[in-house]
């Protein structure tokens, strides 16, 4: 488990890949969206501001027109009977509570009359702020003042704007001034908001403040407006220091309405909105990733993981491994499962086969060895030797003993199964030597060996059983001299070793019987043993063939691969 933990898991990989790709797409699309959104918002803010300012200008224009109308009425009434004036002004001030005072002046600027709502003007009017002769010298037809303090009265100093006009068409006539409180104007301006914090104010052409919603803050130097910048510009909308200024000049050409709105408001609001959107999208993405990873885990990573675990189990305990079949899910994974299942079955079969063959080999080898130590053979041989000794045939006895010793040495061959053909021939020769002594030269034997084959390997005790068969079955009933011919030759990539006799031969049936006879049933080791060992070692194509003609003889041929090293045989398999 530790070994697995250190590695990246498929599930984790999928999870984080989906998350990072999702977030990347999300952020980039939101950023792009934000860029365009911001532009649109700014444009919207400007349009909004312009619309608002145009409304305010209309209202203020209307207000100024209204004052002009009031002035017309005043001028008309002043031309009428002076006796009716008292009652006229009585009504007038009641209708227009925003009018502070109406004053008339001689052409010199000397105050003639002053009417107000119940207030008595001061006697000394030397510094009257309601009539500015300096301005009149520039515009003799009259003017609209900026806000100023009305100082016509005692202990009452309201702020007002003053409209000044000539009393009549006559250029030598005096003037009339109308002091109007800023309250109506301030109502319009104060109520106008642009965006969250935006507002508007009135200024004159020179950038002097006329009315500001926070006029007193400006008078107290707690707030400033960048009027210098605005007065230098034409009407329109422009941005400075993240503030959108919208300017429109009023119909009187004197005052301008300025709208102030904050781009930062628009942007920060949209940023907050965007942030909320981003979070929502991230949350949705997360949910989606959960679902997707759950699905992927079900259809992809879980089966793969199961497969991986199955492989581990297979690795640890092949014999008892049983794969749970996987029937639904993705085609590829199902295929993988099937292939794995086939593979495990095949491996199990193969292992079974190998194990069985190993057992067989061990058994047949043992049989071959047991056959060598066949007690009858040993007794007979030893009898022969003892008989020779008695007869004084010491020379022959020595030969016999030597042959027997060689026979056994080669049989054992230090446990090797494969021995050089040279040795195998030596073994066969020793055996024949012993047997020919025993059978009193009833048969002859010849060797026909291709010299170049001598170094190749063959299974030990291959020729001896065949010779034994020829002696006991082929030549046994023969009156004439039997003949055994042992032949070794190379043919293509094979080596053929054959034992031929001129004995009684076998019928087809006999051949089949001999080939199929279970090695366990016979005393000797027989053909079956030889052919089994050949097959186990070199494969099915290497075998023993029998060619036999009844009453003529039998030839048994062993087919061998050309092998020089004992380990080479595995390669041929």
């Amino acid at each position: 488990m530790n070994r697995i933990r250190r590695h990246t898991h498929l599930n984790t990989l999928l999870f984080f890949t989906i998350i990072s790709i999702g977030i990347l797409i999300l952020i980039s699309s939101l950023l792009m969206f934000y860029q365009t959104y911001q532009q649109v918002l700014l444009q919207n803010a400007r349009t909004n501001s312009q619309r608002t300012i145009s409304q305010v200008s209309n209202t203020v224009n209307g207000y100024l027109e209204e004052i002009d109308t009031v002035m017309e009425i005043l001028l008309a009434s002043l031309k009428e009977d002076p006796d009716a004036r008292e009652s006229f002004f009585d009504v007038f001030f009641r209708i227009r509570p925003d009018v502070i005072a109406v004053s008339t002046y001689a052409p010199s600027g000397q105050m003639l009359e002053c009417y107000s709502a119940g207030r008595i003007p001061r006697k000394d009017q030397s510094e009257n702020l309601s009539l500015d002769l300096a301005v009149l010298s520039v515009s003799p037809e009259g003017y609209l003042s900026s806000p100023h303090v009305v100082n016509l009265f005692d202990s009452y100093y309201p702020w007002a704007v003053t409209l000044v006009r000539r009393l009549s068409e006559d250029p030598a006539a005096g003037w009339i001034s109308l002091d109007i409180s800023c309250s109506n104007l301030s109502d319009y301006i104060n109520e106008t908001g642009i965006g969250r914090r935006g507002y508007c104010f009135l200024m004159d052409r020179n950038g002097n403040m006329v009315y500001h919603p926070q006029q007193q803050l400006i008078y107290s130097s707690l707030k400033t407006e960048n009027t210098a910048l605005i007065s230098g510009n034409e009407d329109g909308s422009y941005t400075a220091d993240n503030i959108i200024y919208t300017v429109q000049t009023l119909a009187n050409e004197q005052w301008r309405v300025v709208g102030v709105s904050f781009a930062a408001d628009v942007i920060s609001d949209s940023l907050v909105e965007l942030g909320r959107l981003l979070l929502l999208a991230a949350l949705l993405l997360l949910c989606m990733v959960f679902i997707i990873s759950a699905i992927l885990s079900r259809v992809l990573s879980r089966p793969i993981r199961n497969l991986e675990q199955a492989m581990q189990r297979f690795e640890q305990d092949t014999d008892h491994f049983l794969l749970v079949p996987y029937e639904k899910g993705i085609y590829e994974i199902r295929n993988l499962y099937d292939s794995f299942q086939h593979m495990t079955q095949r491996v199990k079969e193969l292992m079974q086969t190998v194990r069985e063959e190993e057992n067989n080999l061990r058994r047949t080898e043992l049989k071959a060895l047991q056959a060598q130590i066949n007690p009858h053979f040993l007794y007979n041989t030893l009898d022969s030797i003892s008989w020779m000794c008695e007869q004084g045939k010491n020379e022959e006895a020595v030969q016999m003993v030597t042959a027997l010793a060689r026979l056994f040495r080669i049989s054992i061959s230090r446990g090797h199964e494969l021995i050089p053909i040279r040795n195998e021939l030596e073994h066969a020769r020793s055996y024949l030597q012993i047997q020919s002594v025993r059978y009193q030269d009833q048969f002859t034997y010849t060797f026909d060996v291709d010299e170049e084959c001598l170094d190749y390997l063959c299974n030990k005790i291959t020729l001896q059983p065949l010779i034994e068969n020829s002696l006991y079955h082929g030549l046994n009933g023969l009156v004439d001299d039997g003949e055994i011919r042992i032949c070794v030759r190379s043919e293509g990539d094979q080596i053929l070793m054959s034992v031929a006799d001129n004995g009684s031969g076998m019928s087809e049936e006999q051949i089949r019987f001999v080939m199929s006879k279970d090695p366990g049933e016979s005393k000797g080791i027989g053909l079956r043993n030889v052919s089994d060992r050949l097959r186990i070692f070199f494969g099915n194509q290497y075998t023993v063939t029998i060619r036999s003609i009844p009453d003529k003889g039998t030839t048994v041929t062993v087919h061998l691969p050309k092998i020089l090293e004992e380990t080479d045989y595995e390669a041929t398999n």
Partner: protein
Amino acid sequence: MKPRINRISFLLFLLTGLLLFLSACGMRRPDSNQYKVFLIAKSTQTEFWKSVFAGANAAKTEYNMDLHILGPETEEDYEGQNALIQQAVKEGADAIVFSAISYTNNAPSIDEAARSGVKVIVIDSDVDSSLVSARIGTDNIQAGRMTASAVLEVCPDPMIVGIVNFAQVSKNGEEREKGLREELEKDPRTGKLLTINVITGQEEALQETIRFLQEHPEINTLVALNEPLAVGAALAVDDLDLSDSVRLVAFDSNPICIDKMREGVVSALIVQNPFAMGYLGVEAAWKLLEGQTFNPDRLIDTSTTIITPETMFTEEGQKALFFFQ
């Protein structure tokens, strides 16, 4: 392996949820969460204080706060102010914008309020407390010096100065007189400096000043150090018909004083900026409650202007003298 992934995912999920929640919370401040601010003034009657309230209301509107304006019966009633402080704390004030009648006698109440977690901002006149968070107002010593310079502009030689100061031990009056005396004593024309302390009220000031001028007929220069005193002194000089022989320099911009200035009774007015005090005081309360800090040992000086009959109707003079409504 699977439980681990689930745990990570679960944590991520929680984290995102938390973020969403927090951001949703941070995005809007409910209106019910307004800061509750009390402005406790020295008076609710004078033009000066009306201006302060106008400034405070402007800031209240701008910063969307719950502002309560309170003041005692008279400008001597520090006990009334202490009671108002306790009332404000009881009503759950987040901040108190305070102007002390008494430098010393208001201190314990202010300390107590500050200790209970209320931010205290002092405007106009100071209180002897180390727990005040910000101080805003006129630099009174400087205002005293300005008064001296205005006096020296108009005074005859030699001059005998009568100072009409408040009766209550107030830091404002003390400092103004200190600055005034310092400057005047430097000038060779200064003969004598006399002071009377008068209860801060128009009527009292009028009577006391008349008595003062009658007791000391040698006085040719009169200085009144706050608005009610200024009105009283101006009326006294007018009543005694001494406007030709006595120069009057007075504080603040009461309309009566302005009238008297136009009539030639008042030679100069030292005009403070009460609107700014009110506005900045309440604004400071908001800033403090939002986590900003001020140095309470450094006064935030609101501007002070000298207005003379020549400058009173200039553009700047109008702005300084007359409140825009």
